């Protein structure tokens, strides 16, 4: 893949902004339109931008493939764990919002417009956002790698895995 220096560097400048804006959308999911899925997709756009601009190796230096995999698994497990919080705390229901209007973190009663509201919803948004970010990034990295391998295979015109191993 041919690489433009200008496009690459502009993408590197915009990469952190994409992540920050995605995180903003995720964190305000319980107040404004948006939420885990949308914000996670915006964050993954940052990773996609680096790859499209040909900065795949530079992006890979920051967040590696196995980090994305760990992020995705962590997000899904956190989401399921928060869902089980309703059962484990003795309220007896899956996906029970145990912190809603309970005081403390995210539980301020009667303050539905403030950031400190919504009970478990902001945390669930965060879990889903992290999961979507990791998942879409894993898909992108996998596809880019496969594309690169296929391109190289065409260049050499052997393309056979077993024959390479024997060499």
């Amino acid at each position: 893949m041919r690489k433009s220096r200008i496009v690459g560097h502009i993408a590197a400048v915009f990469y952190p902004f994409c992540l920050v804006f995605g995180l903003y959308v995720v964190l305000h999911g319980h107040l404004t339109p948006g939420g885990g899925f949308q914000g996670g997709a915006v964050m993954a756009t940052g990773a996609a931008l680096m790859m499209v601009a040909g900065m795949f190796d530079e992006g890979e230096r920051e967040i590696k493939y196995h980090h994305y995999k760990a992020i995705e698994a962590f997000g899904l497990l956190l989401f399921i764990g928060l869902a089980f919080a309703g059962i484990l705390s003795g309220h007896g229901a899956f996906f029970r919002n145990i912190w809603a209007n309970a005081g403390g973190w995210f539980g301020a009663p009667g303050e539905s417009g403030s950031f400190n509201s919504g009970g478990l919803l902001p945390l669930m948004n965060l879990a889903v956002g992290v999961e979507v970010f990791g998942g879409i990034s894993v898909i992108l990295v996998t596809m880019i790698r496969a594309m690169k391998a296929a391109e190289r295979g065409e260049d050499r015109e052997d393309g056979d895995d077993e024959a390479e191993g024997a060499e």
Partner: protein
Amino acid sequence: MKHLFKFLVLAVLAAALWRCALAIPFGNPLAGTPLPPAMDEHYIAAARAETGASNVVTSIVFDYRGFDTLGEASVLFTAVLGVGLVLRKLNAKEKREARDAEE
């Protein structure tokens, strides 16, 4: 002939299933389950007070219908799994070549 028989059996089973599904009352008020319009109105009126979130969509997606969201997250996870599975050979090749290039 065999196909016709199969089709007949399928049609009878489908009709039976349809009949049974219609026989079960939907949203029975006696069982304490509100009828669908009442449920909608409850969500719209009480979502803000019950969950504390001012975005009603989020309170439905993550609270009242959290199980649905769990399914959606699992769909994404399965998609990632599928992509990794289909492209694993090319990925392993790319990884090996990158390692060889480093050495």
